[in-house]
């Protein structure tokens, strides 16, 4: 591979970016960060997170007028502008499409590879983006139509990572 970069600076008679020649003494740097802490309210979706944490159950939001089922849940239907009602999901579904990831922010590097998927859940009218946990993940193992089912962590705190998906071997054999 040939890197062909800074030689071209002169072609357009453009000033070189100073960084090309500047040594580290020429600019001043220091470590810094931006941090804010929260007690975050999940507002109209509180019921979902309480059920997730306390009972390991997934609830979706069904429009009281048109019956469209939102998951992730929403307090209102944007088509009817009507309120939604809670309905429980079975947690079974199939892979719409998925990718096997080998890169991410530092907090995830020791967890790679991870599978991020679009999952069509039984009873929900939206497709959910979530992770599938499995050994030796390959694209072939998570191809379109692969049955999956929900699994819950033992220690739950009311976060999206309290649950994840695993291949549904029973459904695959049917």
């Amino acid at each position: 591979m040939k890197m062909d970069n800074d030689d071209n600076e002169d072609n357009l008679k453009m000033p070189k970016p100073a960084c090309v020649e500047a040594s580290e003494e020429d600019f001043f740097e220091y470590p810094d960060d931006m941090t804010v802490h929260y007690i975050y309210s999940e507002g109209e979706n509180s019921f979902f997170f309480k059920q997730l944490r306390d009972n390991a159950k997934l609830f979706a939001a069904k429009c009281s007028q048109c019956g469209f089922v939102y998951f992730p849940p929403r307090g209102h239907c944007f088509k009817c502008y009507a309120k939604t009602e809670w309905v429980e999901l079975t947690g079974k579904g199939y892979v719409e499409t998925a990718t096997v990831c080998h890169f991410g922010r530092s907090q995830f590097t020791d967890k790679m590879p991870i599978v991020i998927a679009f999952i069509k859940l039984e009873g929900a009218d939206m497709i959910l983006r979530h992770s599938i946990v499995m050994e030796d993940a390959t694209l072939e193992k998570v191809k379109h139509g692969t049955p999956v089912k929900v699994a819950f962590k033992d220690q739950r705190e009311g976060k999206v990572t309290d649950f994840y998906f695993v291949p549904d071997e029973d459904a695959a054999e049917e």
Partner: protein
Amino acid sequence: MLHTLEDGYHMAKRVAVIGIGAYPFRARHPELTYNGLAFETTKRALDDAGLTIEDVDSAVYGIYNDFFERQFMADCYVHDHIGMILKPGTRVTTGGATGGYAIRTAYAEVASGLSDIVLCLGVEKSGDCYDPETNERSPELVKAIAYSSDLTWVFPLGSYPAASYVLPVRAHIETFGNPTEESMARVSVKNHGNAIGNPYAQCPMQITVEDVLNSRYISEPFKKLDCCLYSEGAAAMVLASEEKVRELNVENPIWIAGIGAGNDSVDGGLREHLWSLTSNLRASQQCYAMAGIKDPLHEIDVAELHDAFSGQEILSYEDCRFAEYGEGHTLIDEGIVCEGGQMPVNLSGGLIGTGHAVGATGIYQGTEIIRQLRGQAIRQVHGAKRGFLHSVGGPLTAYCVCVIFENNEAR
């Protein structure tokens, strides 16, 4: 509803680009703050237009990420540093489509008569992000971007831009059986190669399809060389009304003949299908209707598409109607989008070859089209009259802006 020239756009003033400037896209510019980048680039665009900052009525700033700049509301500091005190200034932030939306906003200010001359300036840092525990920059930079994903539902999963953009491409592969990894690799080879000779480009490289196929997986099937790199850099345009173009006797104004935009559902869950980016179709259709374009492949001479990832460029051929659905890959496989082809795409190098200084990217792509239409491009398309800009971004590529630029020869 799609507007056409006939049903109302004649009410708007005609708008032209009369000056451009850019600052090279690099992994880092430690010698300049975002204010410094903004100043250097504003000066270049004003010099190109033969104007001073006194002539500018208002400014639109494309700045994407507050963590990148390590500053919220960075636009108000830029406004001060470039000498726009007491004049109107607005920031636009729409992810990777920030540049495109900044152009749209600047266009609207001139077209509506609010301003006669508007500066449209995109600036982005990013390389200052640093993880002190691992002594690495990229994963921390990716974390800064990940804060744009849904903090409740997506951020905790560990998703990141490549893992988002790859899902529509995967769905396309599972639906149509393409693009293959080889077709995607050809886009990477084309764009890295087009960047050779471009002084603004961060990643000019002479590589082969095998080099791409042998690079490591990032988010399958995307490999390292299928992905653009994040950059620091800036780009600017000066937009003016037709009256000003005449008054200033501008030699080669480049007109904005069409502009369209659309934002899709953010997380894919509500989309009609996953194998297409419907916002891209919507934005390009609206843009073509306004410009009176019926057959984009034959009526457009040169295009800059948002190729954050090679496979995404191929999907864009289809949503921008250069090809039928399922057939986008033929444009790269048959060389139609290569230099010398019917529709050269990303002769600048695109994001893959030039880099991605997010807030500046769409505006930089625009400056490349302007150079083509002025006959000043490095890889000049002979006699180019009409160019197309496609700017995409946001969670799961939700945002899209498309622009048609034309020179005086076009009509």
